[in-house]
């Protein structure tokens, strides 16, 4: 069986600084992994390289058997990757509805799929508001909806809890689990909040200075150890 996503010996640089170092991992269909690490350890850099916002120096990215290492971002979306960036990057001057429609290029229809407003009713209420005028939590929901309307096989989420209050974090975790069961995507999420990833991830990878230094499954995870990595 081919993995949903396979990363081999990935190296990413900013100029001379080597930020992602020889990263390898595999993600099975419907699996969900959390990449955890403190600020500046290279999580965002890795995820940006996955969606093609940063070029890789060496290594390969394979999505459902298709090598996409040097594909453009929009080609990766067509190949089945969805991306929710850190900081959400909602189009500020587009309405909520337009933010979603803009992401529906590759689908044939112009009707927003029902799951969007079922799972995020607040987006329906705010349909005609400008994206830039939503709260952080609302923007996060919009960013997730926007990534899912292209029907990805792998959803890449970069620090979805950043700057969001605990009650909304729990809601987002619930929504993600529900959507995952309904839409059958695999998930890669970068995080610093263990409580959140404990609810959505099957597997944990700890990143330190661009390398994976520790890996664990949810069943036998050593939360103290992960906490130690996150707080040093």
């Amino acid at each position, binding site marked *: 069986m081919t993995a949903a996503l396979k990363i081999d010996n990935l190296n990413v640089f900013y100029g001379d600084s080597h930020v992602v170092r020889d990263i390898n991992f595999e993600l099975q269909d419907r699996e969900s992994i959390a990449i955890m690490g403190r600020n500046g350890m290279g999580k965002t850099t890795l995820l940006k390289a996955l969606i093609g916002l940063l070029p890789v120096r060496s290594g390969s990215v394979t999505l459902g058997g298709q090598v996409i290492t040097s594909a453009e971002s929009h080609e990766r979306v067509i190949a089945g990757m969805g991306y929710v960036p850190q900081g959400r990057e909602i189009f500020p001057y*587009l309405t909520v509805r337009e933010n979603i429609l803009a992401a529906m290029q590759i689908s044939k229809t112009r009707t927003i799929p029902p799951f969007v407003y079922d799972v995020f009713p607040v987006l329906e209420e705010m349909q005609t508001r400008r994206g830039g005028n939503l709260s952080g939590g609302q923007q996060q929901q919009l960013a997730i909806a926007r990534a899912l309307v292209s029907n990805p096989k792998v959803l890449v989420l970069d620090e979805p809890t950043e700057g969001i209050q605990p009650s909304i974090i729990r809601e987002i975790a619930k929504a993600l689990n529900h959507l995952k069961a309904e839409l059958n995507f695999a998930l890669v999420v970068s995080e610093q909040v263990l409580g959140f990833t404990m609810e959505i991830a099957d597997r944990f990878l700890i990143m330190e200075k661009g390398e994976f230094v520790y890996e664990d499954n949810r069943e036998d995870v050593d939360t103290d150890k992960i906490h130690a990595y996150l707080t040093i």
Partner: protein
Amino acid sequence: MFALQAFTGLSVFSILMLMALGLAIVFGLMGVINMAHGELMAMGAYATYGTSVLFEAYFPSLMSIYFIVGVVLAFFATSVFGYFLERSLIQFLYKRPLDTMLATWGVGLILQQLYRQFINPRPVEVPTASWLQGVWQVSEDVSFPMSRIFIVGLAFLTATLVYLFLYRTRRGLLIRAVTQNRGMSGAIGINQKRVDAYTFALGCGLAGIAGSSFTMLASTAPDTGQAYIVDTFIVVVFGGVESLLGTIMSAFFIGQMQTWFEFYLSGSMARAGILLLVIAVLYFRPNGLFATKVRR
């Protein structure tokens, strides 16, 4: 007198607005400083001139409507040219504004030379259709030339169509998405390069329509575009580079100022006056007079 002066301002505004809308799309939305925008306007004017020559030779009976055909041809000629310009040159210079300025300036010079060599080194004029020659006699001493009324109408029609395209069509939505956040547009599946090319083509096509209108006010020379390019940049910056509505209002304002200043002062004093005013406004509102605010 007052009404007539205001109306003259309105037709200057029309050309400025069409030019500025095109430039606002290319410069304001895409960040490309297109120094050849004036020459594209001249290209539109020459396309209209060419249409008139063809009609005179082959369909003299249809001379009354050649201008309509000319406007459409001007739009197509300039937007197709713009499309290929973007694909062959501009797309490689997106993050390099100085190189873009130099390269497009060069393109402008080449175009001017081509106009001189292959069209006519001296100004050319187009015939005015009979129904555009008349005047609209409002009262005994106030009358508006039909051609100017037509230009104003054309400008408003074009602005409306641009608005509908940008805000009511799928392609327009993609243009707005890409101009607001290029990287993220790609990451949600939009092919930005394709969007760039037709956005640029649209901006150039608007310069073509401006050129077409221009033929009704004055004769076209190879360097006609030069006279308008500076004013056009002023209009766009004054209006706030991210707001097309601002561009329209700014064109209106500057078009009016221009004719009023010229009425009371000499031509160069008028331009100096406008520049001072614009600088003063930008000092207090650096993002332009009509910039809107949204949390990013």
